[in-house]
């Protein structure tokens, strides 16, 4: 991680992406502070994944600018890619390579120092060391997801983008993942967590944002949400913004 600069870590200004006539992301602007964890909620089709793809550099925005520490950067440039980590629906893993080989491959792509130590630390953090030499195709969904998280964090990114990390996980895998995500709240790393799991989102985040039809329609500190009423509040917000069922 790089030293924390004053001001927001990540800024989006008027970020938009259209697919034909459909605006998946519609002029979204926000700031994420260093060390802040923000949970992004929203119904299916709200454009949350598209927003993450824009921030990761997987997609080019139709309009808008993104800044890291106050500087507008190309999301496909080496500085952005070195400082942002992405956990997507797909794990970006090679099934015929072992977990250790996958992480070693990514360590070399990022040209990381002390690659061997980082790989071993990453495997340990997600409790995969005992199966590190097994090919990934023999892994369960939960193990793959944990390995994908280790890959995401391998280069110690300043900004972590997580897209539905709990999808398809059993209780044990979810608990391991929760432990790793809680460890990300180290006061320096900025995390944007897209999730449908309102309870998990609330427990892990400092701030909650709700996206409907490509727009951020609601933002509030997580402490303003009551865990017992969050589902009802979320439903009212989504319906009030013209969104479908969550």
């Amino acid at each position, binding site marked *: 991680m790089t030293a924390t600069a004053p001001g927001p870590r990540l800024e989006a200004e008027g970020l938009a992406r259209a697919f034909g006539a459909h605006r998946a992301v519609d002029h979204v602007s926000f700031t994420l502070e260093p060390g802040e964890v923000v949970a992004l909620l929203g119904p299916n089709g709200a454009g949350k994944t598209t927003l993450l793809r824009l921030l990761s550099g*997987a997609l080019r925005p139709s309009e808008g600018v993104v800044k890291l520490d106050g500087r507008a950067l190309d999301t*496909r*440039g080496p500085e952005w890619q070195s400082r942002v980590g992405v956990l997507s629906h*797909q794990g970006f*893993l090679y099934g015929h390579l072992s977990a250790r*080989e996958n992480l070693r491959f990514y360590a*070399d792509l*990022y040209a990381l120092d002390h690659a061997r130590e980082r790989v071993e630390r990453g495997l340990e953090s997600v409790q995969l060391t005992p199966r590190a030499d097994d090919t990934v195709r023999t892994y369960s969904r939960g193990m793959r997801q944990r390995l994908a998280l280790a890959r995401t964090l391998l280069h110690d990114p300043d900004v972590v983008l997580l897209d539905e990390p709990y999808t398809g996980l059993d209780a044990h895998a979810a608990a391991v993942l929760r432990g790793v995500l809680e460890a990300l709240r180290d006061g320096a790393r900025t995390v944007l967590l897209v999730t449908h799991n309102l309870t998990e989102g609330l427990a892990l985040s400092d701030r909650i944002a709700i996206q409907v039809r490509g727009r951020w329609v609601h933002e509030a500190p997580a402490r303003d949400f009551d865990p017992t009423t969050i589902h009802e509040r979320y439903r009212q917000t989504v319906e009030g913004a013209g969104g479908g069922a969550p």
Partner: protein
Amino acid sequence: MNAYLRQVYAVVRKDLLQELRTRQRVATMGAFAVLVAVLFNYAVDPTIVRIQNIAAGLLWMTLIFAGIMGVGRTFALEAEDGAFQGVLLAPIPRDAIYLGKVISNTVLVTVVVALTVGVFGLFFQLQYGTHPVALALTLFLGVVGFVALATLFGAVTAGTTLGEALLPVLLFPLLVPLVVYGVGATGRLLQNRPLAEVEGNIRILGAFAVACIAIGAVLFRHVVED
């Protein structure tokens, strides 16, 4: 090792490890080459046609068709679990990815060419001439030029609905110079003609390979990102 070479090496190592585990591409290309040799063995009557006269053409056609089957699969293998997207999100120069893929594909196709040459020798009692090093160099430069183009166009067609079916259509017209000079040099070497007669062809094959790699390295970024 500097960062760039480390990244190229990472791609080469990953591709070869995958192939070592799956043996998908070498097995497919190798089986195709052997089957073609078997069919030619029955299709060509050695009492009518002197095999040394047509061996170069048969060899190069087999090489190209087998090579397309293997190199065309390069990016299909990357699609699993979105792995190639992960590579593109890493701070690696796109030309480093391309060079890594060209090197790994060259290794695989070279193995298949060696097998093909051996099988042709076995079936047709083919004599390799008095300049085996020049013959090997001719075939190797042909493989590099072919792989450089096929890897680039493999990336182009990977994202299309027609996929691998489109690859030969795009690729074959561009392979004409390679085939003309490659078959010319190989034919003369198999017929024990003087080395001076093929030097020009070998130089052109070398220049073709270098030009294809240079153009591929420049264009690859646009192919995979846009």
